[in-house]
């Protein structure tokens, strides 16, 4: 769901790598999620700070590695898309192997 946002603030999600598997994960409302669509979105600085703090705590508790905030565009349906191409690839998988990574998993092709 979208909500009123500060036009000067770029919405953000928290991205990290799962420690045990290395898979890209996003912090959601109920914990770490494999899909970007379930990521919790920060719409202002305070929410972003809370996400950042949660990321630091998850790194400290050895749940994830290398957590950082990612600027996203949020569409009318509330779905986030990273603004930078690097994180777009991280959220999808290799652009040269559409049969692998999250893009395959999200399409129900099965993520080996």
């Amino acid at each position: 769901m979208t909500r009123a946002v500060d036009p000067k603030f770029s919405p953000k999600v928290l991205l990290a790598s799962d420690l045990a598997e290395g898979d890209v994960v996003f912090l959601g409302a109920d914990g770490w999620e494999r899909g970007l669509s379930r990521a919790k979105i920060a719409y202002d600085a305070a929410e972003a700070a809370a996400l950042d703090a949660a990321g630091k705590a998850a790194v400290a508790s050895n749940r994830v590695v290398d957590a950082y905030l990612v600027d996203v565009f949020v569409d009318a349906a509330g779905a986030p898309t990273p603004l930078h191409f690097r994180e777009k690839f991280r959220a999808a998988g290799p652009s040269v192997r559409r049969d692998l990574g999250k893009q395959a998993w999200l399409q129900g092709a099965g993520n080996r």
Partner: protein
Amino acid sequence: MTAHDPALPPRPNSAPTIYAYDEYDRAFVRERVAEFRGQVERRLAGALTEEEFRPFRLMNGLYLQLHAYMLRVAIPYGSLTSRQMRQLAYIADKWDKGYGHFTTRQNLQYNWPKLVDVPDILEALADVDMHAIQTSGNCIRNVTADHFAGVAADELEDPRPTAEFLRQWSSAHAEFSFLPRKFKIAVSGAEHDRAAIKIHDIGLRIVKNAEGEIGYEVIVGGGLGRTPFVGKLLREFLPRAQLLAYLEAILRVYNRFGRRDNKYKARIKILVHETGLDEIRAQVEAEFAAMDRAPFAYDAQELERVVAAFAPPAYEALPAHSDGFEKAKAENAEFAAFAAVNVAPHKVPGYAIVTVSLKPIGGIPGDATSAQMRALADATDTYGFGELRVSHEQNIILPHVKRDDLFALWRDLSAAGLATANAGLISDIISCPGLDYCSLATARSIPIAQAISERFADLERQRLIGKLGIKISGCINACGHHHVGAIGILGLEKKGVESYQITLGGDPTLSASIGELLGPGVSAEEVPDVIESLVQFYLAERRDGEAFIDTWRRLGHKRFKESARREGEDGSGI
């Protein structure tokens, strides 16, 4: 180096021409696997932080990339057996996603291993005398060598025994485990340099002096990356007996004086550049004169043992000419094209060296599926004495194939999708993984390689164009060797989009040169058009038998630049 027991027989199932681990090697690798298993367990249990764990995983070749962990497996000087290749395929299927990526350092990378599985993967590698030690970190990395070693018609001496000596000397070398930066050594024993020795921290070329003694030409301070340099001649002739001590002296000087304040200025090339070659030489010679050289003393018996490990296979006495080969070429144009491009002269009559291209048209350079790995293993068991090589051009070599068997081999390779006849041609592109996998990358490189490959898909046209090395890196670290591509392409980020700088005139061989910038960066979509315009200009201007790089040298960079600019006015964007 003397820890090896010469009485031990070679390990069963190893190819006769490959160095076989003895008990010392095997115990060392097994101990490291057990050690790393414990480190992984402590990391997963939270006893080690990522900061504490990172050096341990890097020492064992394990990176964390964009989508997953990445494990880089060492293939010493690019040599491996069919048994090892089958094991690489097995690992790809069991713990990864059914493929692997052969790199410009003659290694193999798995792109999807899970941390929890890595100890088991390392155990499986150890089962076939392989490991991932020193494929990362600020240490002496996997030593690379001419992929035609031992079989090249232009070879003075097989560089593999030297490379093996260096592997043993540098493995877990306590003093050089925390160098200012990574350190890469390449060895060549032939007239033509196929190991790119002038772009390594140390390049060794086996040479003969006026007295007919074998020794080494020592080149130091070459490297690519952010600040590319062609290596400089440190010693014209180093007697063989002094090799390890002299390299020890070089590394000591580097370890002592190499910069540690700035990682971008920490490679030995910067030390050589800032200090001056003469001063570095004086320091190395002073260290060499002062040091205790006894631990590095020449051991003729050990050399004999190592050389014996690389003894040639049981070649048959064959005529140089093969009627069957000639007949097959005459009857099958596709095979004739393959033979013209992917088959090289062998030093033994009746045999040939075959390059198996991992660059299918539109494919991912260096990638091989597990099925293809098994096909390669089967092919070399049938036709090549069970041995394979990985080239720094990201291809696979079958070093000993009877000319009589070339047609049958080609048919088998064709069935496995491994018979692309483009070795050394414009679609035989070196490419790093780029931003499709690598966390350091600033832009993608594989799709650029694919687009160029598809643009020049016509193999007949490729043969008309002739030898032309295109090399692509997805960031300034230059893993794709773009600086030494006759056409080099560097992917960068510019104003939030991927942008590609093109360079011309790079050369990785003994006539090494760093490419010159063509102009401002262009978009990904524009790259094939720019390459097309450069190729057309070259074809219009070249003289008989002249390769792209030769035409560029004769005409000069300005002419090519002007040509591309004219194209740019028509829309290529330069």
